[in-house]
């Protein structure tokens, strides 16, 4: 580990290029740009305070995301009751044929579906499918086992598809997807 750094410019050079990613994820998690802006500033202030522990050459982006979730949970505990998702209640582990999603998906529909996801699920889907972190990195960022990442991700994707389902086709109107029930 290197000694303490005091140069703000060094910190800005490695950390600020990731501000867009941090803000975007904060916004996706909080569904509120103003709160996301406050949280992003808080992340950078805390990152600066612990910058002396950051090792140059390691993954700054992953480090900032870890701080983001740490600060998010801090605020959740401070402002609200921490909402714990009872994952087993949301979806059964049943492999079920899903009706098709809509032919055209508007931005509003996709954002609406994302907003309806429980926050724990939204976090994994944002990290894995949008920010393209590996399962291992998602697990380290959220401080959860890799198996939990995979199950949350699978359920989150399925919940998203359910939200974006083509309602007409799911009721047998319009194009029919054939096949025998097994």
């Amino acid at each position, binding site marked *: 580990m290197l000694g303490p750094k*005091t*140069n*703000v*410019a060094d*910190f*800005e*050079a490695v950390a*600020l*290029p990731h*501000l*867009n990613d941090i*803000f*975007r994820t904060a*916004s*996706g998690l909080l569904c509120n*740009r103003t709160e996301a*802006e406050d949280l*992003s*500033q808080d992340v*950078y*202030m805390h990152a*600066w305070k612990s910058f002396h522990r950051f090792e140059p050459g390691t993954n700054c982006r992953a480090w900032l995301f870890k701080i983001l979730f740490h600060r998010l949970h801090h605020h959740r505990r401070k402002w609200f009751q921490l909402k714990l998702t009872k994952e087993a209640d949301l979806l*059964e*582990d*049943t*492999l*079920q*044929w*899903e009706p*098709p*999603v809509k032919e055209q*998906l508007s*931005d509003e529909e*996709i*954002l609406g579906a*994302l907003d309806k996801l429980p926050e724990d699920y939204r976090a994994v*889907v*944002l990290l*894995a*499918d*949008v920010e393209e972190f590996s399962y291992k990195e998602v697990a380290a960022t959220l401080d959860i086992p890799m198996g939990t990442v995979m199950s949350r*991700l*699978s359920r989150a*994707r399925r919940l*998203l*598809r359910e939200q*974006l389902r083509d309602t007409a086709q799911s009721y047998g109107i319009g194009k029919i*997807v*054939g*096949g*025998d*029930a*097994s």
Partner: protein
Amino acid sequence: MNVVKFPGNQQCVKVYGYLDSYLSNELLVETTHDVLRHLDSCTECRQALADRQKVRDGLRRVVLAETLPIGLETRISAKLREQTGTNIRRAWFFTPWILAAACLMLTVAGSSMIHRQKAMAASQILALGLGDHIICAMGGHYPPTPPDMATVADEDNMGAKYALLVPAALKQLSQFQLVEGHRCHVGGRTYPHVILRQGDMLISLSLVERKGGEAFPQGLWNGATKIDGQNVFQGHQENYSVAGFATAKHFVFVSSALDEQTNFDLARRMVPATTEILRPIEASLRKPVTMVLAWLASGSFQPEAVSHR
């Protein structure tokens, strides 16, 4: 695990559970081959795969379209320096002006969502140039008399490679006189910055290197005007106007308190010369120092005296 309501055959049940992992390229080679073979012959599973891809692509598209609030990077820089008491040469942060820059409005006809998104994206880039003008030029950070070209070309100021912008600006905007040519640091970014004046009216020609992924919105739309092959954007904020365009590696801005159209005309006049000067810099094909020295040797630069405001 239960399996319910499944069309197709038993192979569908197996492959269906792999589709997300297949999309993420997480399957073993043998399993990938099994999935591919099944997809070749199964319409239902191909449809299911296409649905998964569609949702993932859509999710990335809408989330990645989220843009940073104007001035957030600058506000973070300001807070960092407030905490540390750090100051660097020609670095001015967190003045009321930067908050004013956050209110930048882009001149955009039409009100469709796509136009509003593009306008917001362009506004954030234009705010970089306007913020520098307001903080540096309007903040009075220039010497009482204009520097000579050797001073401007000094690496502590504009640096030789950008100093050619000074004679270009004086030629294209001949009604203006030189006030200053330097590099300033605002919000963690470095701006080669030429300040000109006509009477009490200050204008800034400033550049900033584009960071990865930063770009004005693509395509022709109501907010952009094509000049010499460049899309030029303009915006205004109460008393200030800003116009800007992008070269391969820079954003170029002209900012002033002139009305929007006049400011835009100044920017338009700077497009060809600025693009021409930046091209070799960006391609690193020429030696700008040689060019500046040759120009200095020509003796064609005679800066007029400028009184201290």
